[in-house]
């Protein structure tokens, strides 16, 4: 119950801050938007990709909360590299899968930063959330599986070397998770660049033929594990939003402290001071909810902590909008331009709200878990 950063947490934060200073200090909001393979290699070398992976799997074996703290520290980069989605979706599922030749090889390459892996699970653009039906079918044919279906909102789907595709086996309810290489015949991936520099894809599987060992095995039902990965993603998105909101606060305060109007520094206006305070109060609320979600995720796992993750994700949306709107308003016209980081953070916060389950969706989850109806 110590809320100060522990020494190992502080070390992680410090290394993240150093990397940001060295490679991400930009003054224009549309600076680099392309994936930088060198950066990704560096993440791998620093061990960051494996932060929350088991030591036996080549990871650092740190708790989910440490990864979350790292994500928050990296947020001010608003980086084009898909760190959050990779570690919480691909990393989480590969770590959870039972060892096998395929999985081990895939994980090794992923951990080394040589390959990206994307989760292809959602099937409708407007319903990228929890508990949606999966219609994609894998039909057993001799020693092979033939996969037919459509996936949407596949993060990193275009640049990934392999996809993790969820599918129903034959006509059963049993869900599988299949490793599908990007170049598999019958796989059609349509890339979309998102407005905040991320990348997602629609994926068609037209009779993609896989060998049986493409199937990842899990000790628990696949659907449970995918759900947990999505919760983990939501948790880390909330941390990304918190880090971004803090960065916006800092920029706004600096701006008001430097800028004069009618001969007075803007920050001398009490109405603006109180608005800064309200922004800080919002950040404090999100910090507290994230602290709670972290502790509970470490203690009981992300699935059991779903109500607290939902609370953090909902509040990340509320706080994100509040900070984005106020930061632009307090900056005035210059805050609307691509010359400052403000707009870039605004876009990132907006995308974070739309990914990993929106506020509307998480409120449904939260209300159900807390019996609020």
């Amino acid at each position: 119950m110590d809320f100060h950063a522990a020494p190992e947490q502080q070390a992680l934060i410090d290394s993240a801050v150093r990397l940001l200073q060295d490679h991400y200090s930009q003054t224009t909001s549309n600076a680099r938007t392309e994936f930088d393979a060198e950066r990704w290699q560096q993440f791998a070398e620093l061990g960051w990709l494996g932060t929350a992976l088991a030591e036996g799997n080549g990871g650092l074996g740190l708790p989910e909360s440490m990864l979350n703290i790292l994500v928050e520290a990296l947020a001010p980069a608003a980086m084009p590299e898909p760190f959050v989605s990779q570690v919480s979706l691909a990393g989480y599922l590969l770590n959870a899968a039972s060892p096998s030749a395929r999985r081990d090889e895939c994980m090794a390459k992923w951990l080394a930063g040589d390959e990206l892996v994307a989760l292809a699970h959602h099937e409708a653009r407007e319903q990228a959330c929890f508990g949606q039906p999966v219609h994609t079918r894998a039909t057993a044919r001799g020693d092979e599986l033939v996969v037919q279906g459509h996936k949407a909102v596949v993060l990193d789907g275009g640049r990934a070397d392999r996809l993790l595709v969820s599918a129903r086996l034959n006509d059963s309810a049993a869900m599988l998770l299949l490793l599908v290489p990007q170049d598999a015949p019958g796989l059609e991936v349509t890339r979309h660049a998102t407005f905040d520099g991320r990348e997602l894809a629609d994926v068609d599987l037209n009779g993609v033929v896989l060998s049986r060992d493409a199937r990842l095995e899990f000790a628990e039902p696949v659907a449970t594990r995918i759900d947990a990965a999505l919760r983990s993603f939501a948790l880390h998105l909330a941390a990304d939003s918190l880090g971004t909101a803090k960065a916006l606060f800092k920029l706004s305060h600096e701006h008001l402290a430097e800028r004069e109007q009618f001969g007075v520094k803007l920050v001398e206006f009490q109405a603006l001071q109180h608005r800064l305070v309200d922004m800080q109060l919002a950040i404090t609320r999100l910090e507290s909810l994230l602290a709670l979600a972290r502790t509970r995720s470490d203690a009981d796992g992300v699935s059991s902590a779903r109500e607290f993750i939902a609370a953090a994700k909902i509040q990340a949306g509320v706080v994100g909008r509040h900070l984005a709107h106020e930061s632009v308003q307090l900056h005035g016209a210059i805050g609307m331009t691509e010359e400052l980081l403000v707009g870039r953070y605004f876009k990132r916060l907006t995308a974070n709200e739309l990914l990993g389950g929106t506020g509307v969706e998480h409120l449904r989850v939260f209300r159900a878990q807390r019996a609020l109806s």
Partner: protein
Amino acid sequence: MLFAGQLSDEQAQFREEVRAFLAEHLDAGMVAADDAQRSMVADPERSKAWIALLRPRGWHAGHIAKEFGGAGLSPIENYILHYEMGLHGAPALPPMGLYYVAPTAIEFGTQAQRDEIVPRVLDGSDYWCQGFSEPGSGSDLASVAMFAERRGDAYFLNGSKIWTTDAQHANKIFCLVRTRRENTRDALSFMLVDMAAAGVTVRPIRLFSGDHDFNQVFFDDVEIPVEALLGEEGNGWAVAKFLLDIERGAFVFGGRLRRRFVRLCERAQNCATPLAGLWDKLAQLDIELLAYEVTELRLGHAALDRSNADAEASVVKIEWTELAQRIDELHIAISGPETLYADAAARGASTRDEGIAMPDWLAGYFNNRAASIYGGSNEVQRNLVYRALKQQRRR
């Protein structure tokens, strides 16, 4: 709907005339393009086409007297015209020439200036932009630094103007400039400048959506004749004040806002995800939109003669911008993750929409955050409203 039973027979008849006109002349493609436009400001091409259709009735200049080529509508008729155009999705009209320059030239211009300026605005020959703000000056117009030095029969302009909407399309710019070094209001003058003059350069300012609404305009020893002065030298503050005052009563946002709200509701009705809680928010928005429609009418248009019209214009500005932003915000919540996909069909709906691929409702949401900043930020507007409340209290 607002007016049922409220209009005089003549006004009701005028509204029918407007509606019939819109049904006949407003084509679906034009409307769809306007709905899909990412930018907040009028599209030069589409508005030009629309103005051509309005011109035979003078409705592109409803507020301008017939003797000057307008339709000479009453404030209420003008309100009806613009409310209906907005509601039915007609392209917005570029305001700088029609709403600002023409009335100001009529008020302050010499006969020669009137004769030259007004017809060229009304027939579309000139496309104007505004040079008020300067880097670092924000809403504080008195701090304008751009200098016009008199040498013989000409002024030489040096300095720069910023946040100039449409400088990339305009052939003319009106500027508030300093003609004396003193820091007094009578050191300011109002000048009309040809964008083609030597020494004028335009630097685009991109919004974080990537769109291009604004510019910085640089003046490097630009020579203009003394006839380019509108009003007397040193009278610039009064001219600028008159021009800014026009804003009240010239713009009607109710129809456009109502249209956006209706489109939002349609989207909500066709939405796959359950939005139980959002309908209450939509209802609350609808209520405040109804309130706004009446407020706009009673403060902005029906009451032009009132003594605290400045403050009332500020009330209208605060209300419509904050409502519009809330509509945009709900649009995102209702659309959900689909918002992450760029809608190719929506791109290029305006020549200004050059930005990052994203759906129109998202670009609109981003770009419209500027609504509470430009034309005097809502903080400045609140200061103005308070000033009026203070005076009211003393009375």
